């Protein structure tokens, strides 16, 4: 488990994070929300060990990050908000091989990891393509493949789906959900729809944790939603309107469950 304990961070006299505490557990999907500039990326960078907190500490399985050193670093992968910050090589497959090569793995193992990671994100067919000839969404998938190839124990996804199409979004979210059965996933997003399956949700506002709890609690807490600059997804609005009309709506709020709720209403048309 990663424990963030009372972490604060300041820059140029400005406080960016204030007394933040949070846990990321293996086998759990933890969501982090919050408005633009709330401090989400900064927190993720601290958890990855790229920034040092002004005060407070980060522990993994009880050992402080600083003491664990490289062992800690290797176990935590981060997918950046801007995939271009993460892409290092000029050809797709070379980029994915870069991380495993740095870990000093054997060529066979590297090849196997490159293939499985590229297949997971649907880029295997483009493995020989120059990176500059990828579209925005393809770059984002490449960045994810690069992290998967490192097989970390924790993965921090910083708005990893922001440039993907709906199908790509679903695929990446599904991949992350499957990963979260064994590894610890921290999922940063502005889209509550991607949070509907979270085990735990945290919301930041101006560097402070303003909410911690289940997704259901969050969306029925207008004050927390407001502080996190979050908006209600259409699925939730529809579910609320159906409930008001006497329908019972099961979670998760997907097309199937919403349709079931609608057909349970006494509609004339369907008699």
């Amino acid at each position, binding site marked *: 488990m990663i424990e963030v304990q009372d972490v604060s961070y300041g820059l140029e006299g400005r406080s960016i994070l204030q007394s933040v505490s949070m846990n990321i557990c293996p086998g759990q999907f933890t969501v982090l929300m*919050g*408005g*633009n*500039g709330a401090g989400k*990326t900064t927190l993720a960078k601290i958890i990855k060990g790229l920034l040092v907190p002004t005060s407070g500490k980060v522990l993994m399985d009880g050992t402080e990050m600083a003491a664990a050193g490289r062992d800690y670093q290797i176990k935590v992968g981060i997918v950046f*908000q*801007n995939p*271009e910050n993460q892409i290092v090589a000029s050809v797709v497959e070379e980029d994915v091989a870069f991380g495993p090569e740095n870990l000093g793995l054997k060529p066979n193992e590297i090849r196997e990891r490159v293939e499985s990671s590229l297949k997971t994100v649907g880029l295997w067919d483009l493995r020989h393509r120059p990176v500059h000839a*990828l*579209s*925005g*969404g*393809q770059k984002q*998938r490449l960045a994810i493949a690069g992290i998967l190839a490192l097989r970390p124990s924790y993965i921090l996804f*910083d*708005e990893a789906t*922001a*440039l*993907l*199409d*709906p*199908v*790509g*979004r679903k695929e990446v979210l599904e991949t992350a959900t499957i990963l979260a059965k064994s590894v610890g996933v921290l999922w940063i997003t*502005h889209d*509550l729809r991607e949070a509907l399956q979270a085990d735990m949700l945290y919301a930041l506002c101006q560097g402070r944790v303003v909410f911690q709890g289940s997704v259901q609690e969050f969306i029925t807490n207008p004050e927390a939603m407001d502080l*996190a*600059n*979050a*908006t209600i997804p*259409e*699925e939730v*609005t*529809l579910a609320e*309107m*159906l409930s008001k*009309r006497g329908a019972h709506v099961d979670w998760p709020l997907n*097309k199937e469950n*919403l*349709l079931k709720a*609608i057909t349970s*209403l*006494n*509609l*004339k*048309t*369907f008699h």
Partner: protein
Amino acid sequence: MDAVKPLSLRIAKGEWLALVGHTGSGKSSLAQLMAGLTSPTRGTVKHFGRVWNYPKDLPIEVRRRIGFLFQFPEHQFFAETVFDEVAFAAKNFGLDNVQDRVKESLEVAGLSFDQFKDRSPFTLSGGEKRKVALASVMVCDPEVLILDEPSAGLDGASKRAFWDWLRDYSKEERTVIFITHSLEEAVTAERVLVLSNGTLLFADSPREVFSHVNTLTRVGLEPPIATEISYELRKRASFPMALTVEELVSALDGDL
């Protein structure tokens, strides 16, 4: 391989247009062609009724009439401060009241002028970068606005504010073309262009385009939840097509 296959398209002054399609379908490529930032391998692009010698020679007075927002904000950043970044185009095009313009466009983009003017654009948060990029496009008040995924990375409240503002902006005879992955955002457009593998599949009103739920799903798009549900209901009985939750619920209410 062509990122965009042969297509013909005419966009009228004052149109409000959404450009959608799966990852790699050619949206950014088409948008850059429209903006005159790249030139077509074959065929021609006319701006304001005529062919200019773009991209190098698209004359300055034509360029200033077209604002373009890149998919990656960093692609357009170069200055040391947010102020210089946003002011650049205004100065370059010789506009007056630069300070006021910068201030206004930053506030429109949702950033406080005093808090951000001296910051480096490169150390901003993801959403703040997008907002600065938007402000630096808006500062010239272009009559044609081409936006590549303008709402990506904006938080929920900022998104809402941005769309409200853009709708108002477009009302004054300005042409707005925006790329999005959200068909919920595309619903508001007058015309929706759907690209798939570089081919233009549809260029029609949202109501017409969204009625092709199967085709849209097949090419990697996801119609709004209300549209998908009304589509399922229509399979069983006559039921109107809904584009929004409000439309769906009022159709249901008429039926209760």
